[in-house]
């Protein structure tokens, strides 16, 4: 498995084009190349967290501060952050734009990712979180911009699921 450098770059360019100036993240393999670009960019602030639920609080602080913020996490991190999403973001009407690496789905060779991958969409639906799949590097920039816009107008969490088609080089 090789993470796509070109598509990681397309996602980062999409984040920049959406006017995002602040990111929180817990590094994971699919997000690695993307986060390396964020680290090098002087116009983007990257906050690396110890666990994903922290990022829900940090994103709320960034929102209060008037900063355009996006959260990057793996789907297992999303599952670990649910109480914060429900009892901070949804309870208080605080937007969250989450870009979630969808591990454990079609084509997944690693057993440990599979359960999380299988339940992610169902959990998003149960929580009433609007989501879309990102598969095409030509579309992902628009999808990020629209996800961010929607989170701000709905005052709610929204999720863009980064799929294997987008994140990995074809075999």
């Amino acid at each position, binding site marked *: 498995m090789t993470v796509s450098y070109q598509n990681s770059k397309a996602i980062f360019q999409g984040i920049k084009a959406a006017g995002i100036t*602040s990111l929180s993240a817990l590094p994971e393999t699919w997000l690695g190349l993307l986060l390396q670009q964020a680290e090098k960019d002087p116009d983007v*602030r990257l*906050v*690396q*967290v*110890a*666990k994903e*639920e*922290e*990022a*829900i*609080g*940090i*994103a*709320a*602080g*960034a*929102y*209060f*501060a*008037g*900063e355009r913020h996006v959260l990057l996490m793996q789907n297992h991190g999303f599952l670990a952050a649910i*109480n*914060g999403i*429900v*009892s*901070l973001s949804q*309870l*208080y*009407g*605080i937007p969250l734009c989450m870009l979630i690496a969808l591990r454990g789905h079609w084509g997944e060779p690693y057993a440990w990712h599979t359960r999380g991958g299988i339940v992610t969409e169902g959990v998003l639906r149960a929580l009433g979180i609007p989501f879309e799949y990102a598969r095409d590097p030509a579309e992902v920039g628009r999808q990020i911009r629209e996800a961010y816009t929607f989170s701000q107008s709905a*005052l709610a969490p929204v999720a863009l699921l980064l799929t294997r088609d987008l994140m990995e080089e074809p075999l």
Partner: protein
Amino acid sequence: MKRAECIAMLYPELDDKLVVTIMGACAQELYDLGHKENFFYLQHAMGLASSIGLGLAMHLPKERIVVLDGDGSVLMNLGTLATIARYRPRNLVHIIFDNGSLLSTGGFDSHTTSGTTDLAAIARGAGLRRVAAVDSVMDFGEAVIDAFASDELSVIVAKVAAIGPNHYGMDLHLPENAFRFKRFISERRKASGIAG
């Protein structure tokens, strides 16, 4: 000492700062002194008050942020002490009221009861350099004055009695608190000539 005494002593110093509190007794005791638009009460999502404070501090370097936290909440999100230490915002004062109890949820002992777990030591171990541990109102007051004067990331762990107010309730809806808190910040930024 009582947490309410500490909060009463702190209250006059909070006017020009952004304040984030945890749920329950701590929020109520602050609210009962008189709500201000620069107060945000996190009435759930235990553990995240410190993370909200970090997010505010990193994105608003010209504001002073005060987090009123508790032992139960900190124990739920110990990792954030390390995150705060890593980014070390100079404008954040993190006050942890340690009553050794999950008071708002039935008064069960927390892990800090009887000195089993030392939150100040954990904070130092996480890499926070300026950590004060106090157990009298006088020492609390001095630690607060010191923290506000220092222009450095500060943590104050205050040992307090497991006592709370005899009533709960606010005339403030939760989203209303969030909307007004955000508006207060944006208007203050506009007034000080900073865009956004």
